[in-house]
């Protein structure tokens, strides 16, 4: 009797799980589908290489796309070394005492702070106190701060996953701490570290709120040439087009969303690729 009941519960749970999965996939398909149907016809070279315009058919995303790439590159440059450095220190060198625990809780909490708060921080520090003005550098540093906690947390998880026996074996052969980290721990955890990094960066390129606060502009008629140039980013351009009265602009917005999605997909695909590559490679 109990056996039969358990089987029923098992079946019910399986169906619930299936429905939950289908729901998620279904919503995603509808969202992507409607965006694709609306925007895909607008995607062409002219769209990618034109500046903003009052005529929807002439407008393009050149300055917004280049701004997004600048922000992405600089954010990666700042956030990756600092994030990995901090994580290695906390995980490998730092003592596991009360202070360490306190820092750990704070970093985890920082990962959940709303992004606009980082925007205000960036406005206060980079734009005003350091007098950078509303430029790419200020935006990239702000986003680097925003994703730093995510990188640190994911890197630490990857480092933790390296078996203790490996470290002990290396120490047993007379390796110093740095040698152990460099030759064993980091290579073994590289897949996990890279995955975390790229997912964090993918989040950064979709952020709008902190960049609006820092001072990203809507109309930038040139491709930024240095980190001290003004900039726009794709989400700003999308927001601008969505709120226009002329309906043709929503088609542009849909096309720009596709471009943003493609960038995100490429990044995520890259993350999966790297993880698989490193997982196959590491053999003890």
């Amino acid at each position, binding site marked *: 009797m109990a056996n039969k009941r358990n089987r029923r519960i098992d079946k019910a749970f399986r169906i619930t799980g299936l429905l939950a999965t289908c729901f998620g996939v279904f919503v995603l398909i509808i969202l992507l589908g409607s965006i694709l149907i609306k925007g895909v016809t607008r995607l062409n070279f002219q769209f990618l290489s034109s*500046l*903003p315009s009052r005529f929807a058919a002439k407008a393009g995303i050149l300055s917004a796309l*280049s701004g997004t790439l600048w922000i992405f590159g600089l954010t990666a440059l700042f956030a990756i070394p600092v994030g990995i450095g901090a994580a290695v220190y906390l995980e490998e060198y730092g003592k596991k005492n009360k202070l360490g625990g306190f820092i750990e809780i704070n970093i985890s909490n920082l990962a959940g702070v709303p992004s606009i708060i980082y925007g205000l921080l960036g406005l206060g520090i980079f734009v005003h106190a350091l007098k950078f003005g509303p430029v790419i550098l200020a935006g990239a540093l702000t986003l680097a701060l925003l994703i730093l906690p995510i990188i640190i947390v994911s890197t630490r998880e990857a480092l933790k996953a390296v078996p203790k026996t490996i470290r002990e074996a290396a120490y047993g052969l007379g390796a110093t701490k740095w040698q152990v980290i460099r030759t064993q721990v980091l290579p073994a955890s590289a897949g996990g570290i890279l995955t975390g990094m790229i997912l964090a960066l993918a989040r950064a390129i979709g952020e709008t709120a902190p960049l609006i606060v820092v001072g990203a502009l809507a*109309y930038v008629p040139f491709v930024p040439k240095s980190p001290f140039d003004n900039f726009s980013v794709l989400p700003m351009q999308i927001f601008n087009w969505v709120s226009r009265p002329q309906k043709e602009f929503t088609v542009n917005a849909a096309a720009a969303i596709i471009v943003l999605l493609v960038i995100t997909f490429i990044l995520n695909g890259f993350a999966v690729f790297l993880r698989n590559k490193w997982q196959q490679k590491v053999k003890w």
Partner: protein
Amino acid sequence: MKKTKIIGWIAAVIIGFTACKNSSTTDTGSAEKEKGEVKIDGSSTVYPITEAIAEEYRKEQPDVKVTAGESGTGGGMKKFTVGEIDICDASRTIKPAEDSLAKANKIDYVELKIAFDGLCIVVNPANKFLDNITTEELKKLWEPEAQGKVKKWNQVNAAWSAEEVHLFGPGTASGTFDYFTEEIVGAKGKSRGDYTASEDDNVLVQGVAGDKNALGYFGLAYFENNKDKLKNVKVNGIAPSKETVMNGTYKPLSRPLFIYVNKASFAKPGVKAFVKYYIDNVKSIVGDVGYIPLHDDEYAKTQKVFEDATK
């Protein structure tokens, strides 16, 4: 080996991005081209006009870097009154507090009127009883005292339907909200709070289009582009149009739009010529982005203010 590979990957990505940025340079030098920077921010209502002007100006002076943000009139004024930007787009006149801030920072400015924006009252096309509304009726419907009390159409006018009325309007951060409340209720920012608010006028369009008991207000351009889904209501017997806004008969819901220019910026290369171009060409461009030009004599006045300021 592995370490160098990681670094290699990262370097490749970064170099790749830097390379693709530096490659696209357009340089068509010619003799009498101006150079310089013009920094603009402010009202998102005025933004499309400024964007259009900057787009046209770029064809004549490609080396002048005109940038424009849309942080709202208040946000723009914050930057304008400390001298961070040259021009502030504004959908209202400068507030006394902002003016004294500018004075404290020794910012001398000039106010230039550039166009009109009509606000319109719209209802669902299924609404058959409402073709005209008076300022008084609008006040009854929108004043703070109406909150929670005026819930049905016939509480405003006995001839109207006995069904519930559902209101849609811009949020409190919007210049449109400020203007509407000042003109209709009589005090800036005073409004009932129990209505569906959105800063995005397209959301309001969707709201009114999907509810047969809805009434909303927003910029005329949003009605013009959604005529099939909305019905316009005359205000005090006058329907909003280019003519009625221009000749001042559509009252009180048409508002002037401005740009504020920092006088010190006229000395900077590029700014003076850009502002001149703005005034000379705004009349022919505003229609493209859904706004209404001023009368010719008003443009002459704007021109005069500009000339006096740049003497």
